[in-house]
């Protein structure tokens, strides 16, 4: 019971996402931070107010953290289809690595 609970907590903290989700998270990080930086500079330069540059930049960073760091369901839409469990080990299946047969 306690082990199961601990396992759940660990899973929640680790927040794993699938491969497609990782690609999306990477893209979002780059895009959101870069765009918020550009907007921060342009707005501050036009308004001649450096404090707004600071706050837009920090706000953009906070938004990016919120969008990317938690394992949102969006990042787990493409779960990996593992092979079904085999009763007799790997004996029944043909595994190839770099064109060579291994067992």
């Amino acid at each position: 019971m306690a082990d199961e609970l601990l396992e759940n907590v660990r899973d929640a903290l680790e927040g794993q996402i699938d491969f497609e989700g990782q690609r999306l998270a990477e893209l979002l990080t780059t895009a959101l931070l870069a765009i918020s930086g550009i907007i921060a500079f342009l707005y501050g330069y036009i308004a001649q107010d450096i404090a707004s540059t600071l706050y837009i930049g920090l706000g953009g960073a906070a938004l990016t953290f919120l969008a990317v760091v938690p394992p949102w369901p969006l990042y787990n839409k493409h779960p990996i289809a593992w092979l079904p469990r085999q009763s007799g080990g790997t004996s029944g299946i043909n595994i190839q690595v770099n064109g060579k047969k291994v067992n």
Partner: protein
Amino acid sequence: MHSTLVRGQNVFGFFTTVAFCVAGIIAASVFLIPQAPSASLQLRNVQVVKGRPHYYSPKREEYAHIKFDLDADLTTLFNWNTKQVFLYITATYPSLRASEPASSAIIWDAIIPSSSAPWHTNHYIHPVAPSDKSATTKGKKNSSKSKKAAKKSAYPAGELHLKNQRPKYQITDYAGRIANRTDAVLELHYNVQPWVGLLLWDRRSDIAMWKGLEGGRSELFNFPGLKGAAAKKEDLKTEKGAEGHRLMAG
């Protein structure tokens, strides 16, 4: 990017990169904003008296007390990336020996904040010109309001009109004797302190869209002989703006 920790590290890492780049662009953007500082600085009066560095000192030195007029327009130094401008006036006089460099001493300085700088007790508050003073005393009924007005500079940041301004510091030579020294000159200098980027010193030469400082240099003058008991104490006072911080000595 597979786990929370790795995503957090990645986002923070790229955030620092973006912050550094934006700071660099801000620092570079000020080169697109033209500057044309100008000033006129004149000597009003100079006296030399005997004094001591502090109350208990047995050492007697000669102190020069220099009053000046300053009209400056440094408003173009204030752009969106300016935090404050440190303004100072030096008195420079040649050494007695040709092989030695000239001596320079600061007689007055001020920290002029930009509008984006938070309030600080050391910020210079430009005194109200005597002609405007009568206007403010007229509206004395609302005393709290006039008190508040007295805490604000009389001119926008970078504009100065000081008449017969007392020095902030009396100066002496390292030898303790400054009477009868010749060919002294008063010069206005400044540092522009930005929010991000380079600290800039005053220049006489132009750089691209930035003009060098025009004027801000008095004519040559000589320090007079020692004035004995004839010097009135009232004439030898030092003075700052109306800012809160007071000098501990002098």
